[in-house]
């Protein structure tokens, strides 16, 4: 267990293993996404109430789910970085933020696109949309804080503290917004509950969620590899890598 942990802290080892993982994971992710999108868009029945417009959930729901999970990945990496002072955790945390922000943004935009035909308006101050918006703010806050520090090591620690504070706050924010919405909710807007979703619609959705997790992992690893090379550019192993590439 501990040797594995130590290996995780070593950039050359992590660089090597992540290269191997990516070699298999990237094609798998692309296949998963392609199958999921085709299945969801072409081979499922249209929803009896929303018609074809509901199909955007095959992008919207996975993006939202993974965006939220990404925040917890970031906060976990932050905790590891603060407790064990592991540099790789710094890099992982820093790599999470833009990916998570992008996914949150995708979820918001697809939500708006979905909202137009469903509710007749681009934006509704609904509990989930508002929570996603706040999640986007939290991500952007982490990115802004990281960029504001000149000393990148301190930047990573500061972001770790901020993301941990965010973790404690996300359930509170989510619950407050939920409650706030139920207080103000006009009766005219109704939700299509996820529980009523038909199995034929559910399977492609599950496939898309898994593929989005894989996509997140790929993006995270690629981002981390770039950052690793940039940080370790003066070390022997990076030089050797560059020489091997040049040959």
């Amino acid at each position, binding site marked *: 267990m501990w040797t594995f942990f130590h290996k995780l802290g070593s950039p050359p080892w992590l660089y090597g293993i992540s290269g191997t993982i990516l070699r298999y994971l990237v094609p798998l992710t692309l296949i998963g996404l392609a199958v999921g999108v085709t299945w969801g868009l072409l081979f499922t029945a249209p929803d009896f109430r929303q018609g074809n417009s509901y199909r955007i959930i095959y992008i919207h729901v996975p993006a939202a789910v993974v965006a939220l999970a990404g925040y917890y990945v970031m906060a976990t990496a932050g905790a590891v970085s603060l407790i064990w*002072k592991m540099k790789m955790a710094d890099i992982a945390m820093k790599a999470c933020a833009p990916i998570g922000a992008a996914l949150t943004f995708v979820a918001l935009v697809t939500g708006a696109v979905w909202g137009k035909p469903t509710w007749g308006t681009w934006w509704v101050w609904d509990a989930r949309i508002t929570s996603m918006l706040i999640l986007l703010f939290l991500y952007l806050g982490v990115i802004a804080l990281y960029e504001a520090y000149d*000393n990148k*090591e*301190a930047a990573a*620690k500061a972001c770790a503290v901020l993301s941990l504070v965010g973790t404690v706050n996300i359930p509170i924010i989510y619950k407050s917004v939920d409650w706030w919405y139920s207080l103000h909710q006009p009766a005219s807007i109704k939700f299509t509950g996820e529980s009523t979703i038909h199995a034929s619609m559910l399977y492609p959705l599950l496939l898309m969620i898994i593929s989005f997790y894989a996509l997140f992992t790929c993006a995270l690893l690629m981002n981390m590899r770039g950052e690793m090379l940039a940080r370790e550019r*003066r070390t022997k192993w990076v030089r050797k890598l560059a020489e091997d590439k040049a040959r």
Partner: protein
Amino acid sequence: MAEDLSLERGGRQLFTGLSFAVRPQQVILVEGANGAGKTSLIRILAGLSRYGFEGRVARHGPMLYLGHHSAVKALLTPRENLAWHVSGESQYTDDEIEAALSRVGLHGYEDVLSHTLSAGQHRRVNLARLYLSRSPLWLLDEPFTAIDVSGVAELQSLFAAHVKQGGAVVLTSHQALNIDHQVSRLDLSAGVLP
């Protein structure tokens, strides 16, 4: 105690493989050009810098660190400033604080607001802590900045008295030390204690 310290700043290796121990009755003068990492080293020894360097620092017992900044609040009087700064460490009576202030030449200024004082006097308020300190180890970053000639001489005799009682002083300074005690030099470009 410092072991195998190395520090990299902005892609430049400032020092590496630096190991030394500070023992009682020792005065260590950290030398090096501007930007050699003197301040960084003192801050690492004090425990203020915890990231961005390799190696290990072990501290035994209390220490007193005085940095670049005088830590003097303009809206407090020297007496209040000094009383606040020492209040975390130990209990002192008003007389002790007054005595320390007059030792650094601030007799008569105890109760005026500090923003009317000069930079050198701010510095002196801060240095008055040395007269009250019971910490064996002093870490001083440029203690003579803005201090006049007689003040420097007095501080140096204070250092000598401190080490003779078993204390130790680690300091950076651009001025030549004229202390009645043996001074070890730590040249950061060399990286080892002679």
